[in-house]
């Protein structure tokens, strides 16, 4: 089996694509990159109903859940329904991003301070309208140029 090199993209299931578009584009500033099954040809091929977004260099698909998914309690803002996506912002922009969430009426928990010895600075936790848990974090190591992975090809 080939080694996985890196994360290519994520798929996030939602209950309402329009609501998700308003949230991911309008609140988080994602860009719509594509859509599937809004075309007759796709419907004849039985493709799933989803849209693709990019946020920075992160590509993710937002797919319409064919059945209702369990939702976390309204008041729970931090957690993981199987997965949580964390988006990184620069430390200098973090306060502004948090203020943006507040002004757009998105309930969040935090900012939470992370241990100084670790790579993470602070996080806020929230969720999308379909109950998917999300996080925005700034990283202490944002200016660190990591060494290239070791060359394991010993021939």
């Amino acid at each position: 089996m080939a080694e996985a090199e890196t994360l290519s993209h994520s798929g996030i299931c939602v209950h309402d694509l329009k609501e998700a578009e308003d949230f991911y584009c309008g609140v988080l500033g994602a860009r719509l990159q594509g859509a599937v099954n809004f075309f007759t040809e796709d419907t004849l091929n039985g493709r799933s109903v989803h849209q693709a977004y990019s946020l920075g260099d992160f590509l993710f698909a937002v797919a319409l859940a064919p059945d209702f998914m369990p939702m976390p309690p309204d008041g729970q803002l931090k957690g993981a329904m199987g997965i949580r996506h964390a988006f990184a912002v620069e430390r200098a922009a973090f306060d502004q991003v948090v203020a943006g969430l507040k002004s757009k009426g998105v309930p969040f928990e935090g900012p939470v301070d992370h241990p100084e010895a670790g790579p993470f600075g602070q996080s806020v936790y929230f969720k999308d309208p379909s109950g998917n848990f999300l996080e925005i974090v700034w990283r202490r190591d944002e200016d660190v140029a990591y060494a290239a992975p070791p060359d394991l090809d010993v021939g």
Partner: protein
Amino acid sequence: MPDAGSRAESDLGLRGLSHLVIQVSDAGRAAAFYAEVLGLERSTLPWPEAEGAAVLAADGGQHVILVPSEAQPDLRETGVHHAFVLAPGARDKVARRLGAHGADIFTYSEDPPEESKDGFYFFDPDGNRIQLIARADTDAGGAPVLHHTAIQVADILWAEQFYAEVLGLTPVHRVGWATADYARAQAWADGKEDMAPGTRRMDKRYSSIVNNRLVPRVNMQVYFACGAGRLAVYLANQHFQESPEEATTGVPRTGLRVSPAGLARAAERLNTAGWRFEGPVSHDPGLPIAASIYLRDPGGNFIELATAGDAAR
């Protein structure tokens, strides 16, 4: 779920539907049917860009134009239909007249909440699907008023972008974007809900190489506010023959009534967007429409933006 105010208007001064140009095999026979069954009035006025047509007047200066055409696509299983609003008493009268004509009546559960269950569908002699919506607040003695027309496209996002961003129409109802719509599709598949043709489909699964199980799906639909009426755009559930790409006018055609200032603004907007159109064309005095812009939408549907003329009652 409504996206915005239910009576939102674009800056085209959109007043609603102006007219519908419908394909029939025999204009005289079809006109007699529409006049007898729906109570539309025959008009002797000619209609621009509708050769050999029979013209019928609905209430509020709206018209139905029946154009003879040899080759007609079979639209019975598509979402394409035309809807009129009338008073409940008038609805019952139409039902009796349809019975006398031996025409069947079909009732379905509806996606748009405002269409409720207080109406029915029938086919004209040429297979065009007509919907009647009964409303208590409608003039009991009046002829039916055109409420909406549904067209189909092969790319619903492009169509929405065109109608919303180029023509400035407001989407007010949408089906197929939400899990709840798929729950209703399942109810339809289970035989618990009867839905109008073109609104649901059984779909093969992209990944079902081994089992060929079909899943129920919704055909996507967006309804745009059009004055007090609606322009409904359905994602086609089958491939269909689109009109020639270079054409700007033809049959069938949907006429939207705009203000004179709105017509000029539409020309500007279409020019800015680089969208092909013809007009504004001024018509002869004394007709129900004074001037028109003709264009073909991204789904190949012919759309006409028309201002009211002297003969619009």
